[in-house]
């Protein structure tokens, strides 16, 4: 059998849960919950409350405080003190929210965060063999998320230059993680790829500044800023590019660049894509090698042709 203390604390939790948001006094707890001296008949006043400052009152009060600390420390169940006594704090997650997070934790293996969690914390007891999605989170994400939480500027070296940034948000696009925030020198929003933050001797080279140094502007839209597909955020005048794509490659092409099929022939399919970032468009089209050829508009054809010409000339 479990010992008296284990049972007593569980009974206390069940009893307080039963009372919901209604506060209960120390006297009521001691009378109702076994283990708090009710059977010892401690001195009570005419209302049934414990007489304060007696030896029995002090013993019961200390025991309750100790037990409430165990509930808080080990189970995260907090009890607040009101003018009328004790009551449970409202739960952080509803049961349905908890179930949704457990399901997410059972599906996604988040590598690099909380790698050695304490069994019992939410989502740590799932059957890891059922996970089908692995998402690696670099150490710098933890480091920078802590800095953002503290609103502490970070300083790191990027492209050979030290940058101090009020980091606002973190995000991942394709296989890379980015931090976005206000760079002090430029006084403008900038994005940095985390794996490009330079290191010395393999150590993380991010210096964290004074907490509480900035606020994230209310107008900042993390989702908007972290739309990292160049064709989403590009500032070039939008043009409708037409690309002849080998039939077998159309599916991949559309997956990578989007666009709509405008025409089909035996040897190729014409895909139309709205382009807002010419250089990245050129890079992505060239990825398909001889299986994709830009045929319009003339300025994009020229862009690709001139680049290839320049490369051929430079390598003669």
């Amino acid at each position, binding site marked *: 059998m479990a010992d008296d203390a284990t049972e007593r604390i*569980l009974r206390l939790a069940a009893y307080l849960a039963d009372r919901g948001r209604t506060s209960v006094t120390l006297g009521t707890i001691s009378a109702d919950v076994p283990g708090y001296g009710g059977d010892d008949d401690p001195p009570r006043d005419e209302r049934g409350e414990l007489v304060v400052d007696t030896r029995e009152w002090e013993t019961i009060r200390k025991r309750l405080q100790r037990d409430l600390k165990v509930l808080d420390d080990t189970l995260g169940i907090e009890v607040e003190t009101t003018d009328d006594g004790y009551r449970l704090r409202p739960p952080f997650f509803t049961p349905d929210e908890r179930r*949704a997070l457990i399901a997410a934790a059972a599906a996604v293996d988040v590598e690099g965060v909380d790698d050695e969690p304490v*069994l019992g914390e*939410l989502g740590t007891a799932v059957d890891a063999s059922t996970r089908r999605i692995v998402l690696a989170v670099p150490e710098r994400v933890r480091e920078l*998320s802590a800095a953002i939480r503290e609103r502490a500027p970070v300083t790191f070296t990027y492209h050979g230059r030290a940058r101090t940034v009020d980091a606002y948000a973190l995000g991942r696009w*394709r296989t890379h993680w980015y931090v976005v925030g206000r760079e002090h020198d430029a006084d403008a929003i900038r994005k940095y790829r985390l794996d490009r933050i330079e290191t010395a001797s393999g150590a993380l080279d991010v210096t964290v500044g004074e907490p509480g140094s900035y606020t994230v502007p209310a107008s900042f839209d993390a989702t908007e800023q972290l739309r990292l597909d160049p064709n989403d955020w590009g500032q070039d005048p939008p043009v409708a590019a037409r690309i002849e794509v080998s039939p*077998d490659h159309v599916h991949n092409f559309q997956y990578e660049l989007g666009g709509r099929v405008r025409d089909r022939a035996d040897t190729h399919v014409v895909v139309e894509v709205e382009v807002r970032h010419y250089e990245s468009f050129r890079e992505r089209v060239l990825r398909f090698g001889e299986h994709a050829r830009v045929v319009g508009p003339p300025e994009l054809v020229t862009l690709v042709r001139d680049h290839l010409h320049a490369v051929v000339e430079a390598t003669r």
Partner: protein
Amino acid sequence: MARPSIEGKYRMINAALALAEERGSISLADAAAQLETTRDHLRALLDSVLFLEFRTRRGELVHATRAFLLTEDDHLLVDERHWLRDLVSRPPDADTALRLLVAGTVVQSLVVGANPQLDTAVHKLEQVVAADVVVGVDDPPCRDVVEQARRDGRSVRFRYVNDKGEARDREVEPWFVFSNWGRWYVHGRDLDDDAVKWFRIDRMASADVGDHRFEPPEHAEVPEWFDLHDHEVTVTLRLAATALDGLPTPHRLGAITHLADGRVDVDVTVYGRQRLAHLLVVLPPDAEVVGPEECRALRREHAAALLAGYDG
């Protein structure tokens, strides 16, 4: 043996009940093994939770006996509700919150349709993390068909474009579908040559469920890595530091040496000749291939071949 503290006992109870809730059920023996204790000790600890019932002085019954159950074959399960976890008011610590936030956000990006419970849970986690974290996982169009075939135990037929750009029709037993390194894969037997292979789902076109039926192997896990060592090719480049961000992915960078003229020397490793050719041809024209020599030739030849498509 030292007597465990009351805190230690509670952490063990908490962990055992978490295992029961998060796995649906768990045998007492397995739970005890996970918690590095004996089955009898765990059973004794859980008695308080399993048979919690008492009357107040006024005769009211306080109980939670329907919450947890130990079955006749010694399996612990959450019968109705994990009432202790229902009472948890303390938010998760920062690391736990970040882990759950990332997992929840990934699921949000994949699930079609509303999941209001997950949405509100993620919102609460965002308050704990106090940092916007935007994470999504690409969801290639053929994934649904592959998943459907796997669930039905039937083959999947698709046209597949390999790393060299060659297309071929295939029929595969989809044993296991997973996402790693930002891509979705299916692992299974290729009916054509009876070999077990991996296929990238985003490279599939025209997938449909086939007629062939199969029983998948019992154990399947996401591989920790693919051994692409044999396909690695490394080229040394000299280019403007700002051009590094424009290099096509995936690639791996070696140590970066900053030169006096603002450029950098860097080793770039890619997988396969096709990716190498692409990397070389998209480099800014003023970027130099320091070595090896055959990479300089490949850059020139590949650029010339593509240019022929525009000049011809």
